[in-house]
């Protein structure tokens, strides 16, 4: 079995700075991490590797420095790392990204065997769109399972996979045929610590690096800024709340305190009092 995990190198949101004038993320000098949701995808892939002896390839699109994240994925125990990098990819939105990645996945299939499962995280922490995974599935004509909390079972002989999907209002149990693209939810598993052997292999490994031409992209208008119909109209920081909390000093027993507190609230917000009185009238008539 061959599994591909798509990961993204993102700025560490715990250490991020926003440019005071342009409101854009200042990426320079900010440490990068593997998108945290992708780690759940990677761990799930490694568990399948443990069980079925699968080969795990990690794939990313990004600047040359994204190789760091790939190498880190190897220390967890992935077998192969592929970096898709080209200046033509700069400024890609989700449409252009899923196109480029799907082309890379076709090349991965040619070179290293067709992946039965492609994993991604449910979304990235810097874009939050959750669109790239489904975009890849559609372009490769893979079945897609999104927001997966748990893989119940994988039957490699029958070519089926059964999962639990977190949906609004409950948990769905879904079964589908391979090949499939799975986007993993947070907290679906816990990332392992790679062995010293994994760490040594990762430090020595060569990252397979492809540009647009290498994965057979001929029409560059589908890539990067040119291939991205998304237009950012405006970026703004939400204005900070100006109203402050207030401490109401009260005395006496609990009920007296409560009454004083309610009175203080009504004094500040007569509209609230009015609304509550109307509701009360409606209920108790």
């Amino acid at each position, binding site marked *: 079995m061959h599994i591909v995990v798509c990961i993204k190198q993102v700025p560490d949101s715990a250490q991020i*700075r926003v440019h005071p004038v342009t409101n854009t993320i200042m990426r320079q*000098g900010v*440490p990068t991490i593997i998108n945290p949701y992708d780690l759940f995808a990677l761990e799930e892939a490694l568990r399948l590797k443990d069980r079925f002896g699968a080969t795990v390839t990690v794939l990313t699109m990004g600047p040359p420095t994204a190789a760091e994240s790939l190498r880190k994925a190897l*220390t967890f125990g992935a077998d192969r790392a592929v970096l898709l990098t080209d200046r033509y990819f700069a400024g890609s939105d989700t449409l252009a990204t899923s196109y480029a990645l799907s082309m890379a996945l076709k090349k991965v299939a040619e070179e290293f065997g067709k992946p039965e499962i492609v994993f991604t995280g449910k979304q990235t922490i810097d874009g939050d769109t959750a669109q790239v995974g489904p975009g890849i599935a559609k372009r490769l004509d893979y079945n897609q399972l999104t927001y997966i909390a748990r893989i119940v079972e994988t039957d490699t002989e029958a070519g089926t996979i059964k999962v639990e999907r977190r949906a609004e209002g409950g948990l769905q149990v879904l079964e589908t045929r391979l090949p499939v693209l799975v986007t993993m939810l947070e907290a679906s598993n816990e990332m392992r*610590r*790679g*062995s*010293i*052997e*994994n*760490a*040594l292999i990762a*430090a*020595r490994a060569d990252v397979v690096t492809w540009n647009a031409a290498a994965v057979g992209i001929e029409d560059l208008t589908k890539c990067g800024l040119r291939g991205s119909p998304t237009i950012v109209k405006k970026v703004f920081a939400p204005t900070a709340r100006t109203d402050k909390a207030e401490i109401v000093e009260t005395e006496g027993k609990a009920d007296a305190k409560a009454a004083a507190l309610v009175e203080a609230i009504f004094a500040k917000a007569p509209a609230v009092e009015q609304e509550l009185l109307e509701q009360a009238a409606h209920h108790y008539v």
Partner: protein
Amino acid sequence: MGEFSKPFDAIVVGAGPSGNAAAYTMAKEGLNVLQIERGEYAGSKNVQGAILYADALEKIIPEFRDEAPLERHVIEQRMWTMDDKSHTGMHYRSDDFNEEKPNRYTILRAQFDKWFSSKVKEAGALVLYETTVTELVKDLSGKVIGVRTDRQGAPIMANVVVLAEGVNGLVGQRSGLRNEVAPESVALAVKEMHFLPRETIEARFNLTGNEGVVIEAMGTITKGMTGTGFLYTNEESISVGIGCIVSDFAESDSSPNELLEAFKNHPSIKPLLEGSECKEYAAHLIPEGGYKAIPQLTGPGWIVVGDAGQFVNAVHREGSNLAMTTGRIAAETVVSLTRKREEMTAANLAEYEKRLGQTFVMKDLKKYKGIPDLLHKNKGNFFGTYPKLISQAMQTWFRVDGIDKVSKEKAIFRNFRETRTLWGMMGDAFRVVRAWR
């Protein structure tokens, strides 16, 4: 596992300045080097003021100025003695420091160490991050032959282990090569990074372009403890911090962050930080025990460099240059033994100490070997009484209030004599001179 069964020529524990200097030097000379760092990346766990002294790095990577992330080159040094409301300063500023190859730079360690680590990898060393060496592996004769890490798997073997593990020396301790660092021999320093636009920094400190200023301060800011405060200008930020000897903190009511808050709010410091935003808070130990606190540096299959060897000149606020120099010299020793196909025995590795003795590292530490003791025993005077007396003297001297100068001189002298007695002062002067020589 086959390809890993061959032992490395050397394993370097730690990727700070000393470890990077050692790993780079050995890898560059063609040795098969493995470096193991516990942080997520080199520099993620490292804290320093930080000043980079060019000379030590230049001897390792001569063209470093072209690529290393440097902040500002230092053209002005301000030495302050402070009481609660004043500072008396000696400033040295020179256009000579605006030279083609500047002598000192301010740096941000997280960025600098990452760059240095990338050079180590370029030189051909294998670098593992997020991996902690837990202990050394020894053979039956007690010779160190490898390391064990916190990752699952077999120990990794090497002909020699370079311990560049930092001030605590935990691996050395756990492996029975050294004792715990004495609280009298180590300072605890805290610092903050304050962001300010570069134009503001330049206007506030009278700088143009990449010029930088360093302020080193002592006095009542450490509340009678042995220690110093500092403020360094970076490109778009200011590093401000304070540190004192750990055993002094243990006896004191003051916590490090209280000292830092008070230092930042000192009327001489506050306006320099006005309008800035604190973006980082860090704390670290600094080995300040000097020559007498240096542990055993070599043994069969092991060699100690950098902070782990107490290589800090506390008097001159130098450390990273001693770290890089000891790392380089240890590496050169290992390289020459490897080339000669000689064993990494205690006797052979002792060559490192011999070579070190001929450098500024040992000469300077030897020169100041009496200073830590002197300060420790007289901290009340050096970090309280004298700074106050100096401030009072300056104020008496400069305040124009109708009193004649002869009376002022007498008042100043009387103040010194009554507070510290003539004998006391002579004794202090004698002790300082003796420790300094």
